[in-house]
């Protein structure tokens, strides 16, 4: 037997109480890890933004469209070095639950501006040249097992075709690998192939993507572009890509705040429950602690054993919670859903694990502090007079 054995013996003393406390800690860390995984993937959902890229959308809101004719006019603005455009496709593969983060884009300029997609040059050329191409992110290609040259049907839950269908047959001509920070959970089809078949809203686009000569020119370009279309049928609102991405994340609700609120409340509750239960447990053991002191155990050593017990409780419950979160996230990933795809790859990162373990230790230390202090103060003489 060792001090560690004494900690275990302390936990094993009232099994039901220990199981309930473990469960409380388990729930807290399960919630924490799952929510943190959502937040982390959301933060990475858009990838890093470039300092000299701008996005124009309809001023009313970004679900309204713009005439494609705007693109050439934007290209004339001084300080603009490149222009492309995209339209939200609302795609899915075979079944609606196989949601795809799909856009119709002008292939050449789009892949030129978004070089971080990191496409093999030959594949990029094939995507640009092929009329019915699709450019697929590595994550999606792996998820569905798509390979180059494979023909796949991509359907839309927004757009209809003139022939009555809603499916665009495409051939995988390129797979982009990303550059590490760039998510690879999206797909792109050529705008022309999409637009010529669609039944309504032809010649409209969702966003214009602008590359400026330098970030210093951003403000000036923004002013000039928006001035071009002032008082026209569709006014534009041009913002930096950074601001655009931030707005997108805001659209998902302020998840960070929710996580802080939910886990904060859970932690405070569990802190009170565990702290209170442990204080009670140590009070019950006053006589035994007095005996240990009589045998020659010092107060600091007894305090360490008590704190070891609460840290162990927090670690065991917390690590099981983390493991369960891993399970849930993995399961969620394979089941897949319209909701999850927005989050890119949902995973419990090493940072989340490290933070969680840090929180476990902190929880153990805090809940053990008062019981340990009480244990240190147990006075042998008065304790024996009481029993």
């Amino acid at each position: 037997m060792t001090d560690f054995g004494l900690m275990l013996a302390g936990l094993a003393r009232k099994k039901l109480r220990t199981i309930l406390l473990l469960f409380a800690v388990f729930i807290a860390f399960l919630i924490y890890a799952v929510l943190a995984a959502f937040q982390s993937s959301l933060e990475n959902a858009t990838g890093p933004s470039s300092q000299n890229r701008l996005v124009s959308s309809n001023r009313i809101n970004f679900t309204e469209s713009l005439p494609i004719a705007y693109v050439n006019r934007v290209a004339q603005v001084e300080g603009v070095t490149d222009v492309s455009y995209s339209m939200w496709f609302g795609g899915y593969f075979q079944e609606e639950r196989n949601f795809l983060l799909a856009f119709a884009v002008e292939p050449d300029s789009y892949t030129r501006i978004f070089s971080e997609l990191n496409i093999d040059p030959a594949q990029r050329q094939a995507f640009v040249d092929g009329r019915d191409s699709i450019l697929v992110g590595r994550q999606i290609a792996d998820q569905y097992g798509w390979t180059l040259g494979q023909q796949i049907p991509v359907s839309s839950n927004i757009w209809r075709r003139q022939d009555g269908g809603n499916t665009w047959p495409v051939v995988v001509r390129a797979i982009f690998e990303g550059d590490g920070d760039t998510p690879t959970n999206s797909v792109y089809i050529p705008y022309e192939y999409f637009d010529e078949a669609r039944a309504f809203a032809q010649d409209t686009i969702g966003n214009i993507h602008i590359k400026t000569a330098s970030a210093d020119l951003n403000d000036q370009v923004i002013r000039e572009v928006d001035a071009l279309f002032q008082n026209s049928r569709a006014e534009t609102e041009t913002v930096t890509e950074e601001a655009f991405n931030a707005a997108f994340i805001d659209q998902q609700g302020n998840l960070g705040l929710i996580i802080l609120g939910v886990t904060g409340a859970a932690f405070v509750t569990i802190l009170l429950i565990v702290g209170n239960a442990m204080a009670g447990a140590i009070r019950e053991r006053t006589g035994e602690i007095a005996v240990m002191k009589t045998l020659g155990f010092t107060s600091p050593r007894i305090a360490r054993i008590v704190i070891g017990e609460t840290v162990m409780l927090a670690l065991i419950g917390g690590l099981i919670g983390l493991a369960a979160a891993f399970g849930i996230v993995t399961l969620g990933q394979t089941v897949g859903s319209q909701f999850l795809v927005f989050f890119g790859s949902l995973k419990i990162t090493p940072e989340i694990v490290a933070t969680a373990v840090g929180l476990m230790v902190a929880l153990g230390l805090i809940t053990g502090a008062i019981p340990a202090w009480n244990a240190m103060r147990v006075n042998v003489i008065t304790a024996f007079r009481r029993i």
Partner: protein
Amino acid sequence: MTGEALIELRGVQKRYKRGDETLSIFDDLNLTIPAGDFVAVMGPSGSGKTTLLNMLGGLDRPTGGSINFAGSPIEKLSESQLSAWRAANVGFIFQFYNLMPTMTATRNVELPLLLTKLSPRDRKERVKTALEIVGLGDRSGHRPKELSGGQQQRVAIARAIVADPKLLLADEPTGDLDRTTATEILEMLQLLNRDLGKTIVMVTHDPAAAKYAKRELHLDKGEFEERLT
């Protein structure tokens, strides 16, 4: 088999403050206990028997005077030094056994050895020997509630001797036991004194129990009165 003084009390004073009043238990207590002695301390309730034992075991400090153990004063030691001193030199036996309820006899007896540097193997050996000395070699896996009062007290004695201390302090060790069992325990203490040379100070209010000691000390109004048995 008594030799040099193991314990010497010189002018020991013990006072308790209760609010504004000061309660004086001992004013000038003097006592010498040679190594190998077996002393029974008797006296009326409230005469300070437990207080004396607590001071001998370094659990309580005298208000004045000095307590020497093997020639050095223990009242000057710090709390942690006293803990280490107790672990090495004193074994306690209580009226209500005070075993750890969730631990087996083996683990209870092993507890004091956590404070030593003995290897796990040596510890196991020591625990086994201690349990055999008290005649409980076959009950090592039992928890306190699975043992009779006499058996629990024997586990407590094994715990008290396992680290091989020179001094055993027993506060009413038979106070909770029937006559037959009490006799067994007292004979065991006698054996530990005679064969293992343990110095024992035993508090008791039972004159029959006191007869097992080499001498009796009667504590009354803060003073000793000695009677040889």
